């Protein structure tokens, strides 16, 4: 049973998950439409302010749009492929994780293939803002076409980093059982924070967002090089390395957490 076998199995499970979700077509369509609307409203919030007041601490509307879009797309990738890692609490409190333990597949794989969510609303909206931002900056001569493949790489590594953070938070559930409050800090608040340039925040908060919860590496650090030519090309290699280390560490922690799992529920 090699990696190809597991990947094949994963996609089979995802396909059946999509089929079960598609039984509720009205929900799917409404969800897609409204998800895009929510994203637009959230971006409008900052776009209106920047449009009215101009750049914020040297970051233009296009640049902030880029940060926003990369975060949206990375998050959409992470949540599409590993939705129920984020919802582990439900499995822990109801005792449903026991069911997954009896399956002849690794628990993480079983968890990741549950309730697969295509997120077309987020992908469309993120893609639209990204195209608009990249196009605007290319017109102004700030970046060249090479930024496009770099951006794809960054979206992928970003999804890996977000997955690692999500998995680490979920792992804490093996000890804490309830993790919703923790997730609000490590996932929701931190992801919202880095939609805007980190220079806005005081040093202590910036350090947390780069070291403790390395969410700053999803979009802010790579954009320093891709958009502004700061730091150097080594940054991209560094980001790949950060993503790999985060993934490795979170997987190790997950394995350890699983060994400490105690069933709950009725």
């Amino acid at each position, binding site marked *: 049973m090699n990696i190809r076998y597991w990947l094949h199995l994963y996609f089979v499970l995802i396909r059946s998950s999509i089929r079960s979700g598609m039984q509720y077509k009205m929900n799917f369509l409404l969800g897609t439409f409204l998800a895009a*609307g929510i994203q637009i409203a959230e971006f409008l919030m900052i776009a209106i302010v920047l449009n009215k007041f101009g750049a914020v601490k040297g970051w233009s509307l296009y640049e902030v749009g880029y940060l926003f879009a990369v975060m949206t797309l990375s998050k959409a990738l992470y949540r599409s492929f590993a939705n129920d890692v984020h919802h582990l609490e439900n499995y822990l409190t109801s005792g449903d994780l026991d069911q997954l333990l009896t399956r002849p597949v690794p628990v993480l794989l079983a968890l990741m293939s549950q309730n697969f969510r295509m997120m077309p609303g987020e992908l469309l909206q993120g893609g639209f803002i990204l195209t608009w931002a990249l196009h605007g900056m290319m017109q102004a001569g700030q970046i060249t076409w090479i930024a496009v493949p770099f951006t794809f790489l960054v979206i992928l590594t970003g999804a890996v980093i977000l997955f690692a953070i999500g998995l680490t938070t979920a792992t804490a559930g093996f000890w804490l059982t309830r993790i919703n409050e923790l997730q609000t800090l490590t996932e929701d608040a931190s992801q919202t924070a880095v939609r805007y340039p980190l220079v806005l925040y005081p040093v202590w908060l910036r350090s947390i967002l780069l070291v403790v919860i390395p969410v700053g590496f999803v979009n802010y650090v790579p954009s320093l090089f891709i958009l502004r030519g700061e730091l150097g090309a080594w940054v991209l290699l560094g980001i790949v390395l950060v993503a790999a280390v985060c993934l490795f560490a979170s997987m190790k922690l997950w394995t350890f957490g699983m060994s400490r799992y105690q069933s709950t529920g009725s």
Partner: protein
Amino acid sequence: MLYFSLASKAYARNLQYRGAHMLHNVASALFGYLYACIWIGIGQDRPLGEYGVHGMIGYIAFTQASLWISGFTTNGLGIPQSVRTGQISLDLMRPVHLFVHLMCREWGQIAYQFVYKSVPIYLLYVLVFSLSLPQQVTTLLLALAGLAAAAYLSICMNYIIGATALWTTESSWLYWMNHALINLLAGFFIPVEWLPRWLQTVSWLSPYPYLLYVPTRIYLGFEDAYRLLGSLVWCVLMTLACLGVTAVVRRKVEVQGG
């Protein structure tokens, strides 16, 4: 008396989770802090209208704390959940009007959130940002009246959102859409007068400004009591809408689940 005990039970149920909620308050306060940092950044080189940088921080602090009164109401007042389990048929059979029953329960929830979320979060901001409190008691009372109307409007909006679950079984998307509209149109992050003109028109044609913007402006001393008339009109309109929706729901209900 029944109505009061519905509310007090909802309040008491929440008391069990005080510890976890306090941790959650830290995260919630952090969100407001992020938004305040953005305004500090923007206000560094330019004046921020009649508010000024410190005024904008006070504005964000108040809207963030008020979000627990008029923003984070229970998704659809719990109707989607009872549609899925079939409980809705029993709820409709009770000798209490469905809207009044759910509204009273939600008032208990909001009262809890006011005491254990809004107040601690706002006090934290007062300390961190050295905010000053209103000089006159009347300002405070008017702001509280504005917030009470906002809470009621939010209950009505969530009742209507919840009622759609009878057709779609799922209304969480509408709930989040409503939340996004609160962020944009209720003056949560941007005061309504700074929105583009067309969006201002849309905003004032909706009840959204009365959820956050109006109570905040009253609290900061920028508005008089007459603004509350708008809140009152919307409360009446939304009540009529909720009663109308209930009449339709009574004919629509299908028992699912089991």
